[in-house]
Structures are given as C-alpha cells and as structure tokens.
C-alpha cells in the first residue's frame, strides 16, 4: 500500500469546536426542511446561509471496501502528511503487516496526530450527530452536505493509544537503504525534497523497476534536495502529490504573505496564520527572520501556539542529516540549522502549548499568531477567529493549500477581518514535472486522471497538465490498473561448487555455453541452483528408504544442440551417402530438402529441423545422424 493519507476536508461540514464557550456558535439557529420539518435542528445548524453539522468533526477514511486491508503486507509512507489515517488502518482492519517510513516522518507525523487528537479531545462534545447520514435524509440536505460522499464511513478521530499502537508498527528506514520484501522486491526510500524525511520510493526486482513519486519538490527549502538520479531507468513511474495550486508560485506567495503581514501590523492589526505545526511554518519563520528587521517589525511579537509547538521547533533542529546542504553545514559550526532558534532566543518568537496559561499573561497586540488547525474547525485558531474576526484591522492569512479558504471561513461569517489567501505549496508543478520526466525518462508514467487534463475551470491552460511521451496512463478512484510491464526474467544464483564443475565451450568469440544439471531450489522468491544429489548407492535393501529421500529420476540427458546446417554441404553429404534425386526448395523460414526417391522430406528452419518420412524409422535415424553431424553438441 502506497501511503495512508486522511481526507480532512470532511471536517469543513462541521461547526467549529470553540475552546471557550462561544455564544455566537451556540446560538446558531437549527436547520429545518423546506416544509418546516425541524427534526434535524439538533444536528444541523445554519450560519450565514450555510448548514453545518453540530457534532464532533469526523474524517473520511481511505478506501476500505475494495481490498481486504488485512491482506496488505507493507505500507510505504512518503511523508508525514500521508500517514494521518494510519491508526484507522493498523488498528481496525486486521492489518498485520509492516509500515516503512523515515524517522523524521514518524516523529513529525506523531506530532501532527498528537496535535489533532489534542485539539479534539480537549473540547469534548457530548453530541454526536448521525441522523443526517441516513441516505434518504442526506438527499434532502442542501449542498455541500447533500453531495458529501461515503458519509457512512466517516469516523471520529482516533485516540492517542491508537496512535501509539499504530506508530509501533512502523519500521524506520534511511534514504537509499535497500529493504528486501519477501525476496520478491526491494524497496528503497529516496529524498523527495518536500519535507523533513519525505521520500519517494523505488520498488524493484532484478529486472523491473517501479518508482513511486509522491509529494516531491525541486525548490530549495529546508529539506534535503530531491534525489532525481536514482529514479532513472524506471519501467513505470507512479506520479502523485503534485502541487494543489499550480498557478501559485511559492516565491510570489511568500512575498505576498510578508507584504500583507507587514501591512496589517503597521496599521495596528493582528495577523492570524492557520497552519500545521511543521513544514511550511519553518520556511515562513525563516523568511520572517530575514524580513522583520527590514520591515521595521522587530518589536512585533510572533506567537506559535500548538500542543506540539515546542517539540516541532526542537525536532527540526536535530534532524541535521535530513536537511539541505546549507543547513547541514551549520550544524558543524555548530549553529542551529534553522534561524527560528535565534527568534526564540531574542524573544521575537514565543511558543505555547495552548492559549491558556502563560500565553494569556504574555499576550500583547498587535501580534502575529501561528496556530492550527488550518481547517478552522478545531484548535486554538477557532478562538482567534472569534476574537479578531470582528475587526477589519486584523487579517487572517491562509498558507496551507489543503482546504478551501472560503469554505473554512463559512461558519465565521459575517466576518470583518481581512482574509488573504497565499497558499504555499512547494510540491512539483507541471513545468517541473515536465523537466523531471525529461531527465528521468521512465518508460511509462502512471498518474491520477486529474493530472492528464487541464483543470475544469481553466480548460485553455494546456500547461496545467502532464505532457509526456508516451502519454501518461491515468487512473481514477476504485479503478484497477494493470501496470504496463510483464515480469519475464528471474535471477537465479548458482552455488559455487556447481559453478566449479561447469565446462564452458566457446561457441562464438566471447560467448561460451555449458550444460548444467542441477536442482532448482526456490524459497522466499529466491532461486538457487544446487548440485544434484549423488545417486544413492544401492544399500542392499538393508535399510528402508524413506519417502522423503526419494530423488527425482535422473534420466540420461540428451545433449543440447547448436549451430546451423549449411544446405549445400548437407545435400552433398546426402549424395555421398547414396541419396539421389535431391531437390531443395527455399521457404520463408528456411529450406526443404526433398528426397524424392525415398519419399522423404527434411524441413530445415532456423530453430528446428523435421524429418518427415513414412514409417521408415531406420531411414529417419540415418538422416538424423547426418543432420547431427553438422551441429555442435553439449
């Protein structure tokens, strides 16, 4: 199984979970059907024309119906965003396999899960809505609830216990490490350049190579650069996890982010940045580190609020081997690789686990707050939205591309604060993909259908699709796709003692052949040629032979033949041996030698010779021996 991501956009259908009681949210009117029927008004609330489920947020799990997940042997994880559904799979499906991921992926993935669990568990909600999921009722609901798919499979958030159990099933791997999977294939993680520890995977046998490229970046940010060279010579390259916003250039967006931040703060407003506790935030803090002095923002406090803020900032500093070259060299100086250490030291950046406690006493405005969750449905961000939403001086800047910012803002309407959308997605865009594919030259590319056509809203943008030769094979949800290659060869090892016994004969300069008589031993998808057991000496029947000691009958082996038959010489030989009235006919594949007198036909082709005579075995054997004279035997 390749990756194990969690679709969190389902949470956008739910009301936010406020950290402190919100009169506005609790007083929202219940929703009733057009005919006035109000039986759903406890479950559904209306806010500014949108309807939301008033319940604990639920998540959309990966497809579980198509295959029996208990039969999955291995899960390969690309990056920490792509493992958020892991507890659902490992704990509730009978999964008994192994999960492979790099150390930073596991550690930061743990932080993301911990934050998620914490956000949801710390504001327990008594109510759980399920009535609306009834298919007959769902039909009557307004969009987008009406169009939500697979709502019956939506699940509440997992617990910390489940997280720990899931993570315990992960086997840590390092870049370029070769991992044998049941002898059948070897898998290798490669740096994908997107996030700390993010990986692309190579799955290869001795003769076939499949690359799985997911969430990769060619931009110079904090992680180790993408390893492109190792992806070369792939039979198939499975490509996914491209940028979600191909039209937004990350550089431009960072500039936009800084400009809007400065503009707001200079006018006395506060800036709210809904974000994940790891990833782009490191780059944003680095940009701000360079920018705040130049923009005269040195006195503005930057707050990072997350239950895992401290761990995230500290983890980033210790994964030196997973960082880009510049940051790695800093470690040897020794200096912290990320400049947020200095921001913390100089008190420009302060981090808190929650807005309760120390934060309340330190809090000073105007300020910039980084906090989660980017969906605006849970986490400390909900409080800041409620607190700052009423003033047009304040700004919320969306940098995470996973959620539609308009949908995220829907339950906060009407909103006076300014909203800026600066999605920063450093993953590959289509131009970079073209360059990558030209460089790597896989025989076939396999990708989601969406990548093979321009976005529906911009159908003229031929640049916003994968353009490669041969055209990429696309797949859609629940489609079963046969990868375009066949396994034609297996590698077989030969035991040294058997190899010693071989007597090769040179049949062409540089090419030697030898016949082998051996036993092919196959176990765990590995094939070994072993010397054949010696024929057992007759023991005089004193000892009974056990059935397991039986060896296959070693028949007298016929020699192998090679070479070609020169027709003219063969005819001459036939004549010498008394055959007359010989006629030779050329055919498409070779020749036919007709012995008219003997009513016999010798069919000579490139890879076969047939002697067709009418029940005259003696003649056939004579002729066969004449044919064999022209061939080499082993």
């Amino acid at each position: 199984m390749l990756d194990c991501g969690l679709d969190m956009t389902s949470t956008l259908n739910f009301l936010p979970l406020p950290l402190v009681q919100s009169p506005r949210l609790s007083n929202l009117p219940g929703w009733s059907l057009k005919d006035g029927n109000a039986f759903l008004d406890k479950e559904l609330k209306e806010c500014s024309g949108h309807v939301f489920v008033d319940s604990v947020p639920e998540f959309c799990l990966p497809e579980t119906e198509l295959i029996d997940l208990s039969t999955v042997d291995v899960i390969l994880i690309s990056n920490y965003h792509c493992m958020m559904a892991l507890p659902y799979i490992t704990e509730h499906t009978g999964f008994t396999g192994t999960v492979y991921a790099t150390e930073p992926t596991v550690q930061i993935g743990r932080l993301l899960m911990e934050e998620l669990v914490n956000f949801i568990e710390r504001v327990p909600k008594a109510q759980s809505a399920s009535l609306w999921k009834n298919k007959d009722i769902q039909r009557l609901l307004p969009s987008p609830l009406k169009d939500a798919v697979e709502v019956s499979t939506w699940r509440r958030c997992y617990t910390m216990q489940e997280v720990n159990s899931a993570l315990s099933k992960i086997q840590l791997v390092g870049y370029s490490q070769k991992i044998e999977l049941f002898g059948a294939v070897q898998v290798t993680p490669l740096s994908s350049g997107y996030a700390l520890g993010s990986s692309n995977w190579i799955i290869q046998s001795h003769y076939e190579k499949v690359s799985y490229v997911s969430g990769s970046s060619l931009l110079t940010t904090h992680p180790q650069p993408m390893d492109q060279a190792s992806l070369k010579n792939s039979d198939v390259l499975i490509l996914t996890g491209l940028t979600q916003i191909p039209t937004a250039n990350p550089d431009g967006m960072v500039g936009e982010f800084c400009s809007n931040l400065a503009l707001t703060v200079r006018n006395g407003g506060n800036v709210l940045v809904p974000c994940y506790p790891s990833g782009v935030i490191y780059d944003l803090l680095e940009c701000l580190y360079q920018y705040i002095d130049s923009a005269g923002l040195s006195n503005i406090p930057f707050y990072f609020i997350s239950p895992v803020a401290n761990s995230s900032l500290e983890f980033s500093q210790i994964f030196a081997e997973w960082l880009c070259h510049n940051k790695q060299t800093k470690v040897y100086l020794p200096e912290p690789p990320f400049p947020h250490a200095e921001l913390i030291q100089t008190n420009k950046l302060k981090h808190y686990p929650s807005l309760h406690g120390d934060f309340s006493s330190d809090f000073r405005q105007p300020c910039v707050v980084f906090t989660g969750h980017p969906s605006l449905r849970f986490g400390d961000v909900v409080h800041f939205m409620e607190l700052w939403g009423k003033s047009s001086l304040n700004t919320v800047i969306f940098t995470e591309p996973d959620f539609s910012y308009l949908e995220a803002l829907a339950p906060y309407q009407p909103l006076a604060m300014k909203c800026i959308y600066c999605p920063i997605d450093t993953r590959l865009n289509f131009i970079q993909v073209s360059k990558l594919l030209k460089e790597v030259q896989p025989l076939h590319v396999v990708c989601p259908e969406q990548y093979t056509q321009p976005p529906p809203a911009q159908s003229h943008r031929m640049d916003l699709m994968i353009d490669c030769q041969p055209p990429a094979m696309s797949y859609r949800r629940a489609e079963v796709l046969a990868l375009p290659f066949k396994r034609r060869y297996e590698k077989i090892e030969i035991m040294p003692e058997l190899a010693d016994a071989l007597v090769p004969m040179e049949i062409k300069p540089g090419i030697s052949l030898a016949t082998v008589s051996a036993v092919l031993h196959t176990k765990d998808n590995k094939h070994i040629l072993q010397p054949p057991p010696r024929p057992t000496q007759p023991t005089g029947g004193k000892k009974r032979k056990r059935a397991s000691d039986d060896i296959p009958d070693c028949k007298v082996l016929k020699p192998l033949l090679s070479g070609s038959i020169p027709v003219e010489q063969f005819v001459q030989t036939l004549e010498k041996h008394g055959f007359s009235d010989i006629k030779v006919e050329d055919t498409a594949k070779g020749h036919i030698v007709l012995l008219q007198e003997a009513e016999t036909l010798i069919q000579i082709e490139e890879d076969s010779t047939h002697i067709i005579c009418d029940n005259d075995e003696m003649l056939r054997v004579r002729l066969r021996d004449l044919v064999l004279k022209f061939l080499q035997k082993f």
Partner: protein
Amino acid sequence: MDPECSQLLPALCAVLADPRQPVADDTCLEKLLDWFKTITKAGSSLLLLQENPCLVELLCHVLKPQDLSSRVLSFSLRLAGVFAAQEDCFQYLQQGELLPRLFGEPGPLGGAAWTAPSVRSGWIQGLRSLAQHPSALHFLADCGAVDTIFSLQGDSSLFVASAAGQLLVHILGLSMQGLAEGHPSLQAGDWPVCAQKIVGHIEESLHSTAVPQITQALNVLTTTFGHCHDPWTQVLWVRLSPLVGSLLEKDPVPAAHSLVDLLLSVARSPGLSSSSCGLWETLAQTLNHLSPTQAGPLALGILKLQDCPQVLRAQAFVILLQPLACVLKATGQDPGPSDVLDSATGDSLTVDALLSSKAACVGLLCRTLAHLELLQPLPQRPCPWPQEPLLGAAVTLLQLCRGSASPASDVGRHLCALLLGCVRVQRAALDFLGTLSQETGPWKGRVGSFFMSVSGPQELVTEVFAVLLEYLRSPDSSPTVLKKAFQATFRWLLSSPKTPGCCDLEPHALLVLRELLPVLQKRLCSPCWEVRDSGLEFLTQMTRHWGGQAGFRHALLASEVPKLTEQLLRDPESYVRASAVTVMGQLSSQGLHVTPVSPEHPGGQQKSLLVELLHILSTDSEGFPRRAVMQVFTQWLRDHHADVAGDTEQFMARVLQVASQDLDWEVRAQGLELALVFLEQTLGQFHSHCPYAVTPPVAAPAGPLAQALQPLCRVRLFEFAFRALFDCDRPVAQKSCDLLLFLRAKTASSSGSLQESRSGPDVASVEAALQRWQAGDQGQPLGDLEPEVVLAVLRSVDLEGLRGALAEGSDHMEKSPQSLLQDMLATVGVLGENEADCY
C-alpha cells in the same frame, strides 16, 4: 614639434625598434599616433620626416627580419600611413621604396607577423590613412593591395574583416572621386580600373553560393550607400540591383539581415532617385520573401522613410502588424474595423513562426512590440493608426502571459502555453501599452472622455486598467515587470482627459486610483526592495502631478500610503530610503504628510519630518538617502516650506554644518546648491536686477549690504563655501567657486557702502586660514565672520584663477606630448620593476 620632443624622439624610436625592449602598454602607442596625427594635420609631414630622420629610420628598421613585437609593427604601419596621406610625403617615402616594402609582398604581408590580427589591422588602417590622393590609388593597384583586402574581408578577426570592408568602400569612393570630377559620363564601362575591380568583386560575391561572401558584398554596398551620395552611386545601384534582386529568388534568402540593411541604406540615400531605379519594387518583393522575423526590421525601416509610396507603406505596416494580428485572431478577437490589421491576419508563415518554439515566439513578439513602440511617436507613422486593435493586442498579450486569457482556438492555447510567465514579453507589452497612452489622434478626442464614450474604446481603456491592476496585484509579477506596470499605469492616468479648467483626475481615473492605492500599500511592504522602490517612484510621480488636486488628495489621505511611506524612511535598503525621502519631501510640500497630532506635541508633527530628515542627513551610512535629503531641503527652501520658513537661519546653519562634514561629495555639492538658493533669497531684494532673484523672498533685507550679508554670516555659509573651495573633489570646488564669484559680482557695485578693512587683522587671519586649508590642513574653523571681512577676502582670493585651474583636467600637466615621450622612455627603462600604465 617643439624642440624638447624632437630631442626625445630619436631615443624613443630606438626603443621602439629594439625588440629587447618591448613596449608594455598599447595605449602609449595609441597616444603617440594621435599626437603624430595632430602634428601632420597642422603641418607638413614631409618637413617632419626631414627634421626627424629617426622616424624614417624606425620605419626602415621594422622591416628588418627580427623578432619585433606585433604592436610596434602595427604602429609603424599606421604611422607610415599617416605620413603618406600627404602626397609630397608619399612621394618622398616612395623614393626609398619604403611603402611597397611596408605594404607590399616583401613586408609583413608575407611574413610570420601577419598571423597577428593587430598587424593585419595596422596594415589596413595604414592603407586607409594613406589612400587620400590619386598617387595612392596607383600604388594600391601596383602592389596588389586590393586583392589582399578582398581576402581580408573574410578574416577571422571581426575587427580586421570590418575594417577591410570599410577600406574597400573608401578606395571605391576615392577612385570614383576622380571620375566624378573629370568625366561627366557615368557609364559603368568608363569607371577607373580600381573601381571596376572592386565592383567586379562585389558582383562575383553576389553570384556566390557562400553566404559569408554575399554578406561581405552586401555590407560593403551598405556602407557605400550610407556614406557616399554622389551621382555614381545611382549607376552602381542600377548595375547591381538585378543581382541583389536575384538573392530573393533563393530559399531561404541568404544574408537576409545584411540585405535589409542594404535596401534601407539605398532607400535612405539622398543620391538615389528611388522611383527611377526600381527600389520600391525590390523592397516590396523583399517584404514578401523574407520570413516574418527578418521582415520586421525592413518594414519598420520602410515606414520610417520620409517619401515612400503609400502602397509599399501599407504592405510594410501589414507585415509589421502580422504577429499581433495573429495573437488577436488566435484569441478569438475581432481585429476591429481597421483594414490594416484585418489584412494582416491570414499569414500562416507568421503563425508558424510564432508557434515554432518559445524562443522564436518571444523574440518575434518582443521585436514587433519594440518596432511599433518606435513607430508610434513618429510623424510619418501610418495613418490611420490602428489604436484600438493594438491596445487590444497588448492587453491580450499581457493576459496570455498571466494565463488570464481563455483562448478558444488551438493556436491560442498553444500561444498561451508558450507565453505563460514570460517576463520579456510582459516587459515589452507593458512598455508598448504605456506608449499607446500617448495617442492623441482622432480616436482619443472622438468622444470627450475614454470612459464616458458610448461604444468601443472606453471598454478597452477599462480593460487596460484592469490588466494593469492585475499585474500590479499579482504576486507572480517580477520586480522589473512591476516597475513597468507602474510606469504604464502612470502614463495612462496621465493621459486620461481632464475636465476643462481642472487638472484633477477624471472621475473614472479616480476610481482606478482608489483601487490602486491598496495595491500600492501592499507593494510598499514588499520584501523585495526593488518593488518598494518602484512603488515609491510611482507615488512620487503621482504626487508631483496631482498633489494639489482635491480628488487625488482626498483618496491619498484616506489611504495608509503616506503613513507607510514615512515608515520606509527607516528601510534597510538605502535606495528605498532615498526614494522615501524624496516622496516624503514632496508629500510634505503638498501638505499631504499629515499624521495624527499627539497630545504631547500639539502642532509638532510637521516638524518631526524635518528632524527625521536631519537625522538621516547626519547619520545615514549610505550616500543616496543623504543626497535625497539635501535635494528635498533645497526644494523646501525654494518653495518656502513652512518648516523651513519658520526659522530659515537655524535650518540653514544646521544643514550646512552637517553637509560640510559629509564624506559624499555630492552631498557637499548639493549643500552649495542649497547655499546658493539661500543666498539668492537673502540678497534677492537687495539687487532686484539679479537674474536669479526669487520673488518674494522670505526675509527681504531692506538695509545696506552688510545687513544683507549678516544672515549669510550667521548661518556660516561662507565658512562652508570657503572650505568647499579647496575640496578634494573638483566638482565641489568648482561649484563653490561659481557661488563665490556670483556673490562677488552681486556685491561689487555696492561695496562702496561698506567699510572695507582689507588690511585689518581679521582679514589676514582668514586669508592665512584659507592658505592652510588649501595646503590640506582643514582642521581649524574660521569662526564668526563679519560681512566686511568676507567681502575683503572675496576680493583677495584669486577666484578666476582658481576656476581656470579647476576647469583643466586633473591630468593636464601630464597630458603634454613631452610627458608622454618621457613616460614611455621611463617605463621602458624600469620595465622590469614597474609595468603600470604610464599614466
């Protein structure tokens, strides 16, 4: 030649002729040659050689087989040419057979030295100088030089090849000169042998299949028609035009670029009657045969011609517009009612050229836009000018580059993919769009206002502003593109029609401005300093034009722009600080720098800008912001800015004190400019005849001269000016000198009213201090000066002499020929230790 130089010359010639003493520096030889050229221009070369036999010896000596450096050999060839330019001297050198030995087969031409490009170049330049008289022509013919020049046209060194071509043109002109004077007949058959040989060679080259040879021939012809306009050139063209025309029959047309140059050169030549020699037909034919990329420059050239048949102009204009017409067609837009653009649409060659590759597409579009931009302001540009379709094309191109256009056709989608994010096309299109704002033809005046007209243009102008705003808003616009977008926006705002009798922005333009200001606010906070700087420049331009207008003022003051601008005074980038200083100075002058008055400093806010600017002047580590502050202060003083007018003397004293200590000479020079303004204002009414008088002065001095000079003394203007007089930077000293001379002239007629104390102790001490300053010891201040002392000192200092000395170049002492010769000798003498330039 002066005797000193004559004395040094033999030694120098000996050094030059000695291969063991190589001359390290080429520039010395160049200067030496220049000097000889000056001497020979002024007098007889023959006399010079006779008086200085060492020169002929040098020329003879270089011919000896030896290991002489190529630069000396090249120099000698050029020197010989300079001397032989005068016919008597030529004859003199011929007597000794020196010239054939230098320029003929026996000379470097046949030797190993010929492999050096500098020698070949020297040989050509020598002949170029020499070929000034009929004897030279015979010489060239006799020594077979012309054939060598033919071969040098294809020399591996571009300099040599180009010089060879030019020499051929020169020789052709020289030989035809004699014909034109002596023979009225212009038949080609009567031409001198030399000219016939050259023309024959050109014809042969034009027949050739080798492109380089054709290019050489075309280049020679281009230069000929460009430089020589005698009647024979028409005969030459009539003779060669069929050959030139035959080039068009080849596919692809060889040396198309050179061919275009030639045809335009012929068309521009006043010596040719274009209509009688079939030139227009050839031009029309060429336009049809060249590829769209090659035809563009020719089309532009044709359209720039003053007298040209209308049909040809129309054809050229169609060719020029074709790429833009293709863009419009590909994006499904109607090129509009213009016949010109309509007829330009169907060219499949242009479409192919556009779509062949990104580089070709970008190149063709950028060239087209640049050509049209050049054409637009010319009086001879095509009429009617298709303003609307051109605007539409520029807007469409900008949309294609942003991906905001949605073309329906395949060609359009392909174009979109090629142009997406292309900064070059964006820049060119924005420049062109800005140029189109200048349009003042019937289109603009047709309906009073762009925005209020009933149909057509107003929609386009709305689109123009929309696309400009799109660019200004886009996070993906590169800093250079943004700068161009700001410039184009300003030009369009500027061109919006004004209500009669009112300079304010037109109502729709004001709406645009209201959308623009939030964008500007954000750009002023950009992390990229170039963007902040462009934003400030844009604001400066706007404030300069509409700072006094109510609509603009209201919109600006309602925005955060002034406040943000003030914060940029502390920007880490010095260019931005400088721009912010300029804008703030201007905003303040216009009364647009209004910050909320704090209770602690009622009414003190305006002062704070002055204090802040003074702070920048005294402490900023970079020169640009300090220079900008000085310019703002000067402008404030001129405008009688309230902050300055309140206590001008204190302001002046403070600024001059800070400026005098500035390490940047431009700040000190600007300080003198400020001092001059103050001086003019102070003395303005004292002498109403002063041409620089500013009226009304701030503090009109009514009393006698001494009283008038008192404020200048109080602000220590004289100490500043005298100190600047001996400034180590010449422009400062010159400016100070001018200022003091101006003051002396102003006070001259009135000095009688003052009790001069020329011999008094104060004057003596000031003069002594000045002498010390001149000597470099500027430590001691002058102290408080009395007007009388100042006047006395002004008269005692030799300001005219000083001005004269300052007007001389800093190297005027070292620039003499004698110094050059001495330096060359000295350099050679100490070559081992010092290889530096002799200057």
